[in-house]
């Protein structure tokens, strides 16, 4: 790998890192504003105009709080937990194609950290690793409520991973590739997967809600039953890391949804543009779709009440998995007919 390519990737990773964290920070502000809007309140308006400095104020508050580790906690695992949660949430962004190639200084710059040919499996893998952050944190706290939260989180995430995986398989069958860039390229010309897989999209979306521990599936941090959930014993920026990781995961899973089902950086009428204009408009389209889904996640959080845990398990195992298997079967049959296997 040439040095220029290394520098290019390094700069791109740095920008992606900064943008993801910035968006996650402002997602907290946005969440409060959306909540306020839904509940007919004003929301945060003290820090700066319209309260736009609120995330900075929150961050400063978390940093200056006492960094406390319980006496009977497993010290190193207690520190490791939030780190793993943050790491896995950030890693998923690395295989998402954010746009077409840009021409900069006579060089073609790929707007993707790594175009690995197993992109979607990479995302599924890091999703399944994500549960360790919560489990380790919850167990190391040495607190029964934290452990309950951790166990709820892990069983919930394992259960919903299955239905999610089956939906991903149907998408892979349609596109014939595991690479996210190829999946996006396949959807060129309004061939968005949502039109072929509406059922798959709904199941995937519900599973994404459960995987990111968002309402109505936010049982791991059920204040009314578990005091706080898996992060009951956490404070200061360690707590901040857990909360922040949730918003990073919210952003990346919205990006994955727009890549898999809504054509990624494709947009209607994109054939009239070319070169850098097309690439930049593509990035804009990608971010518009992503932000829309971030908003939908928040919309659902402030609309639906929390599920009961047995209802959650019933929905996952007895509804979503059979429906997604049915969807897989139908898709397979249609593809087989189209390929002419029954002639």
């Amino acid at each position, binding site marked *: 790998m040439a040095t220029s390519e290394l520098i290019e990737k390094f700069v791109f990773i740095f920008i992606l890192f900064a943008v993801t964290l910035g968006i996650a920070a402002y997602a907290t502000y946005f969440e409060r504003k959306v909540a306020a809007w839904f509940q007919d309140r004003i929301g945060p308006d003290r820090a700066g105009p319209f309260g736009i400095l609120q995330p900075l104020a929150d961050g400063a508050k978390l940093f200056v709080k006492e960094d406390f580790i319980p006496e009977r906690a497993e010290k190193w*695992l207690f520190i490791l937990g939030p780190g793993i949660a943050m790491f896995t949430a950030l890693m998923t962004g690395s295989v998402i194609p954010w746009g077409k190639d840009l021409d900069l200084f006579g060089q073609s710059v790929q707007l993707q950290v790594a175009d*690995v*040919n*197993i992109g979607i*499996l*990479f995302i*599924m*893998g890091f*999703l*399944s*690793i994500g*549960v*360790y952050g919560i*489990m*380790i944190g919850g*167990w190391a706290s040495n607190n029964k409520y934290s*452990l309950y939260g*951790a*166990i709820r989180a*892990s*069983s919930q995430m*394992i259960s919903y*991973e299955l239905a999610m995986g089956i939906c991903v398989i149907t998408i892979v069958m349609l596109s014939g590739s*595991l690479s996210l860039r190829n999946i996006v390229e396949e959807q060129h010309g309004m061939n968005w997967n949502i039109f072929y897989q509406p059922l798959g999209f709904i199941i995937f979306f519900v599973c994404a809600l459960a995987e990111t521990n968002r309402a109505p599936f936010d049982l791991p941090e059920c204040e009314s039953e578990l005091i706080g959930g898996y992060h009951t014993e956490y404070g200061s920026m360690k707590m901040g890391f857990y909360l922040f990781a949730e918003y990073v995961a919210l952003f990346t899973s919205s990006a994955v949804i727009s890549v898999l089902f809504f054509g990624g950086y494709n947009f209607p009428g994109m054939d009239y543009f070319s070169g850098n204009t097309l690439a930049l408009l593509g990035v804009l389209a990608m971010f518009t779709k992503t932000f829309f889904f971030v908003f939908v996640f928040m919309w659902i959080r402030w609309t639906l009440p929390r599920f009961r845990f047995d209802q959650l398990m019933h929905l996952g195992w007895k509804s979503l998995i059979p429906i997604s298997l049915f969807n897989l079967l139908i898709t397979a049959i249609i593809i087989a007919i189209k390929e002419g296997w029954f002639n």
Partner: protein
Amino acid sequence: MSLELIATILGGLTIGSALMVVISKHPVRSVLYLVLTFFMISANYVLMNAQFLAIVNIIVYAGAIMVLFLFVLMLLNLSKENEPKTSLFVKLAAVVTGGLLFVVLIAAFKDGVIVAQTAGIDGNDQGLVQNLGQLLFSKYVVPFEVSSVLFIASMVGAILLAKREKQTID
């Protein structure tokens, strides 16, 4: 940094984390080191350009099976006081059988040839998902189907066992 150097360092780390699984006092730590070992093995796969195998190893072992291990261990109240007492004889027998297995493994692997090539050496791309799929569904289709039947059988068995358990409780 040459590929050989990376492979050596990675191999050392893999063995190191595998040893930590055995040495760790606490079972939960052992499981966490085992997860780390699976990551190291996946890194070795990536070095051999077998990306599909690497990520499937992470999804299946680190992501699913080890989570269940951890799940069970966290729920058990494992502490020094209620550790089951093993007699000296059992400990001795365990050491002898472990040693025997070690000797057999050394005998099996000492003449072993390194088949897998590291990435970038004479276009080794057998582990990429396209080639692996072609191979699985043409040359090795019978073993592949047989193993899937085996998986279904074990799934049915697990469900049957779980069902019977529930009836006795009711």
